């Protein structure tokens, strides 16, 4: 006869890894990098990894997670053939400007491939994805910087920050200080 239902919350509960891989099948393998940061680290050599984080820290003045950076670096390696040269070129521009923040050098990055790449790196950190498309690679959800800009007031959906019926505190004005992240 037929198979009876299996209670997924009972004895057949999937392992966490099984759950994650279950999720991965959704996005045709594109998500693999985000699931296993240690593998990602192995896939991108340490030098490149260091350069990528150096560039990221020049482009974004917030605390950046090395584990997320490793995943974005791997995505960048797959997407940009001349990644080492581009990293080098933009870092050189920043150093020439003695930049301590992105505003000090961004305007000097030439339009075209280099500027587009710099914007891609910023977008990857803020959105946690390689693009706005359905087939995007996901680098992170809850660590995407977009959520940090609103972390003093908004929940990252599915990660509640208040308690039962405790969401009535007054709204923040736009002039409230930007959260530190």
């Amino acid at each position, binding site marked *: 006869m037929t198979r009876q239902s299996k209670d997924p919350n009972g004895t057949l509960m999937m392992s966490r890894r099984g759950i994650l891989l279950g999720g991965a099948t959704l996005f045709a393998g594109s998500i693999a990098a985000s699931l296993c940061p240690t593998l990602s680290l192995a896939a991108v050599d340490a030098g490149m990894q260091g350069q990528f984080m150096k560039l990221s820290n020049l482009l974004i003045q917030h605390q950046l997670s090395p584990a997320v950076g490793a995943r974005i670096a791997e995505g960048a390696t797959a997407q940009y053939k001349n990644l080492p040269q581009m990293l080098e070129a933009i870092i050189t521009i920043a150093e020439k400007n003695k930049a301590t923040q992105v505003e000090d050098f961004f305007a000097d990055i030439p339009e075209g491939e280099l500027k587009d790449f710099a914007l891609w790196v910023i*977008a990857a950190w803020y959105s946690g994805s390689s693009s706005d498309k359905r087939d995007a690679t996901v680098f992170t959800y809850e660590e*995407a910087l977009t959520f940090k800009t609103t972390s003093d007031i*908004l929940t990252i959906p599915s990660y509640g920050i208040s308690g039962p019926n405790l969401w009535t505190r007054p709204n923040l004005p736009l002039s409230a200080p930007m959260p530190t992240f």
Partner: protein
Amino acid sequence: MVTKTSADVVIVGTGVVGVVIAEQLLDAGHSVLMIEAGPRVSRAEVVENWRNAPLGVKGDTSVAYPSRPWAPHPMGNEKGDEAYLQLSGPDSYAQTFIRYAGGSTWHWAGTSWRLTPEDMRLKSLYGVGRDWAFDYDTLEPYYVRTENKLGICGPSDPALQWPRVARSAPYPMPHLPFSPGEERFTEIARTLGYNNIPVAQARNSGMPYDGRPACCANNNCVPVCPVAAKYDAETALHRLEKKGATILVDSVVYKVETNAQNKIEAVHFYDQHKETHRIDGKLFVLACNGLENPKLLLMSKDDRNPNGVANSSDQVGRNMMDHPQLTLTVTTKEPFWSGIGPVVNSGIMETSQGSFRSEHAGAYFRYNNFARNRFVTFAALKKGLVGKALDEEIRRMTACTADIVAAHEVLPDPNNRLTLSDKTDWLGLPKPHIHYDVGEYTRKSAEVYSLPIGKRIAEAMGATDVKISPKFNQSKHIMGGTIMGNDASNSVVDADCRAHDHENLFIPGGGAMASTACGNSTITMVALAIKAGDAIVDQMRGA
């Protein structure tokens, strides 16, 4: 093919309609077998799927529920012949539902507006549409039972309740508090003379209920509540099994078999290996939702029922309805900060009523309370900003943009019709084809009524920009395809959702609804299911 006598009652589908009836029958001492097309998955898997989805598609409510080959359901990325729903007509009946154990309440918002007495008498009062087979007073006790069964919270102050008629019992939980943005929206609506009232919603308010925890503002009710504070039918499956139900999953019913007396004798299903099975029983309930039920009935045509089972009236698959909606996306100077609390928490309902309904549809307005990072981040990034300017722009756009939705009623129109497409799915079963036109009645409402009100609200919010959706979108409230009536020649089911043509077949849920009104209608689908459940218990008793 394997044949086996199964249970007193065979229920096809484990959505909210199916599980509510199953529990009633189990409690009355009957054996129940449930047959479910889709897989049974854990909440953790769905939550993980959603978190792993790219930010740009997080607004797609199906993204956490990839459909199985044997049980396809609409997915956001399908087009043309590939798509599960084959669509035609001036408007697109592009519904979303999922074929998983637990059904589409997995990703519903839980908004639960009752009908009003007038909503059920459109023909007598306004000369349009159809009257229901019974009146509001008949339905009212079933609403109360639905509210208690699902755990629907709502206001105790009659001035804040909908509809504005006396209730026979209070809500089982108090209403949820408004977020600051909703408070502000309510004040603004009041200046225009509109009451934005707390929505009755299937969400635990300030307390646990039915073994589920209190809502704690994860703002993720659509597409899944991570803690099951929102009712979904999956949460009932374990309890049903403890009470003795058998639930078969990955089992797609494709034929309802009749016997010489034109009673239902059995249902046939495919498993996920394309093996066929046959299950007989004494009484059958189809609870596959308002779109899959008519499809299954049409697929089941036989010599005795050449138009399909339950279709001597030729109304099966006709009168397909929903709540066509238009969204006004407003940009404001003042921060409203959508996204604090549950995703829908209030609404303006009085705009759904009035003598104008002889001319055009009414509309209900709601302030969508989804956190907006997922909608605005890429737009902010595309501006090419960096550093502090980028942080500030994302924060501004998250705080100062909002969606106001106008949801309309539609009239039952036999030309809005589901038929069987010549395109087939993985199992070789025909895909549903739906032709749809929201009709002049609804279009006129948008022109002369709902959009003008929506624009006034936007203006009062201080909107500096308003973008209006270019076409009607679906609300995913599937209604009408197995319409109810007292006259067997122009309706499919009677007042208890029993098929006019087959005394042991019940087809409860949205398909039976004779009018849509404007409010989200699952509460009415479930009230009809409980009414049908009572009738089934009586019928099984030989009453």
